[in-house]
């Protein structure tokens, strides 16, 4: 059995660790590329969302490297992701790939059924204790990745040498792939922290400390905000444009909520979102629709300069949220932009919109600071 799984940003590092530490042969699909998406789009239903198409592309590319089993999470709705594992299995079968799909969910709510599936993937040579321990370690690794990402988010707009920052990020990720001890995780995070601090010190010494960057909150559908390929690497682009980004969902927050059922908090807990969303959306709508609304309120309360929502075309929960965000924009006086992505999305188009959005935020920031109050009120009277 050679297990593979779909890509979603840096998730592969965690899943690879998980299977390797359990001595299960795992095949990491080649990193998502245009080719992956093309392969996936060809055999996907036309109106399926972007993550579905990328997933299928990942499986096809992994099959070429010998993978025969897919591990994917499931769900019971109402977001259609819950049915993706099963539908993808059927599509791959019809397209001539002999995959077995193991959907990690309690089938019809039966926990023994879920344990059986985990056992099937982990094989008989692992004790339950070891499986649990490994899952917990993988979870800690996801926390470490999130911490590194967050440091890089802060470093991008502040450090002048942009390529060096990216190199630092890639190096940190590369060393996180092979780390197998808790101490190792801590060391990687600390070294990134130290490196950034040192560079900033040098920079401040040479050219004085710069002004505070714009702060932009990224909210939306989990796949598109976690996976740089599907969102044209929006975090990096914004960082280069001089904005510090934060996002609504971090991987460990999701794992903490769904795998550990809230027992582990994750790096960024998603707990407060439903409460914050309540005045605008009083009921969950599947996927992360309510989280999108709640996190938008959170970013507004924290004084962020703007919010960007990313969603794949036809995403049902996010469309509900997108209909509500204008109300938050009005009530909290914070600009919100919605970006829809699909297989036809071009980087240049997104870049132009991001530049325009950042310009808009910078201008309103300047106006807020420079224009005296009287002038503003005079204008209103005219």
């Amino acid at each position, binding site marked *: 059995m050679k297990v593979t799984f779909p890509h979603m940003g840096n998730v592969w590092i965690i899943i690879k660790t998980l299977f390797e530490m359990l001595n299960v042969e795992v095949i990491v699909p080649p990193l998502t590329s245009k080719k992956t998406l093309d392969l996936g789009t060809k055999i996907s239903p036309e109106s399926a969302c972007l993550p579905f198409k990328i997933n299928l592309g990942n499986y096809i590319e992994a099959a070429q490297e010998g993978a025969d089993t897919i591990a994917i999470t499931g769900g019971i709705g109402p977001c259609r992701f819950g049915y993706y594992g099963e539908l993808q299995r059927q599509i791959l079968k019809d397209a001539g790939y002999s995959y077995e799909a193991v959907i990690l969910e309690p089938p019809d709510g039966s926990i023994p059924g879920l344990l059986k599936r985990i056992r099937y993937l982990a094989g008989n040579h692992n004790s339950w204790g070891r499986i649990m321990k490994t899952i917990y370690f993988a979870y800690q690794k996801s926390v470490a990745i999130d911490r590194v990402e967050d440091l890089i988010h802060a470093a991008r707009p502040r450090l002048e040498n942009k390529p060096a920052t990216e190199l630092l990020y890639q190096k940190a990720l590369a060393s996180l792939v092979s780390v197998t001890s808790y101490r190792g995780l801590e060391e990687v995070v600390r070294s990134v922290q130290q490196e950034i601090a040192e560079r900033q010190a040098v920079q401040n010494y040479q050219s004085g400390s710069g002004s505070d960057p714009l702060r932009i909150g990224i909210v939306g559908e989990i796949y598109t905000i976690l996976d740089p390929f599907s969102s044209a690497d929006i975090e990096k682009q914004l960082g280069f444009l001089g904005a510090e980004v934060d996002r609504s969902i971090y991987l460990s927050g999701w794992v903490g909520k769904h795998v550990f059922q809230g027992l582990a908090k994750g790096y960024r807990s998603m707990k407060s979102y439903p409460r914050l969303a309540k005045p605008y959306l009083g009921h969950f709508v599947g996927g992360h629709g309510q989280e999108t609304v709640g996190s938008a309120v959170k970013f507004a309360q924290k004084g962020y300069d703007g919010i960007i929502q990313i969603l794949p075309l036809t995403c049902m*929960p996010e469309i509900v949220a997108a*209909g509500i965000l204008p109300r938050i924009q009005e009530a909290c006086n914070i600009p919100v932009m919605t970006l829809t992505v699909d297989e036809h999305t071009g980087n240049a188009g997104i870049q132009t919109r991001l530049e325009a959005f950042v310009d808009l935020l910078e201008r309103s920031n300047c106006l807020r600071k420079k224009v005296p109050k009287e002038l503003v009120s005079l204008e209103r009277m005219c």
Partner: protein
Amino acid sequence: MKIGFPRALYYFDYYPFWAGFFYNLDIELVTSEPTHRGIMESGLKMAHDETCLPVKLLAGHINSLKDVDYIFLPRMVSVEEKTYLCPKFLGIPESVSAAVDGDIPVITVTINWREGQNQVLKALEAFGLKLGKGKAMIRNAFQEALKWQTMYGELRRSGEDFEESLDLCEKSFTILPRETSLKLAKTNQYKVCENREPRPGIALVGHAYLVNERYANLDLVNKLRANVDLKLIEETETKAVENSLKGLRKKMFWSQAKKILGAGYSYVDDETVDGVIYLSCFGCGMDSVSQDMLARRARKAHKPYMVITLDEHSGEAGLVTRIEAFVDMIVRRIENESNLSAYGKCLDNN
């Protein structure tokens, strides 16, 4: 007190329930007029760009409701155990009313059958109390409402069409004795003219709010009925639907998709059905799953299958051409038993 009920989306599935509920609470329920150009256009202007046509129509209908005290937008989370409705249904009270932003206050109640009948009743009691009705009255109204819904289901299964069923259902609880209306339904049934040659059997599957929305689907049902023997999901026995879903490895978690897929699978296996048409709308997330699954099954069984995707730009000529082509293809297939040559001369005798 007058409560406005938009003639869109859940109107096409669950109106009898709400009509019965409010009738027994002595509250006047006013529906918006059937969709027309003005409603559609105002809906398109107001609703979020990326949402689907039915939700845009809903926005238009909400906007067209005037002279009512409240607009009623229930949050229908689930109508049976272990399933949900579409995520957009779950967010309707907030997302659509945000788009329309009228002066008339919106009232809502959350209906979630996942948690059982008692919870639904509890939610309705709390809702009814706010409207100033007593608990006993609400309970009675709830029981009556269920009867209305069942009656409507029976009428549909007897072959009555959508508008007639709603009308008869309402009459049977308000004016006529029940037996008379059921009898009426049977005499009214659509009949095939016996002197004409047998016509191809076609099944039309899709969401009730598309199939029964005559304006948006360009009167597809009647267009088809003029040429073929039409089968609709509502006319199919629930048992047949459930049986055909038994082979699924994973259960469907949307009620509507379950109905569509179950009925669709049964049509694929049904020899009296010569072809299946799936009526979908652009951007429907549920259909992207169920449509693909049904297409796969139809292909395996060599059953002719066509998808019609509606959006606000659907044109009549395009639709008519596609239906004609599909029906012609099926007629030829019946006559020639699919022994058509894949190349060379046409084997069509006529």
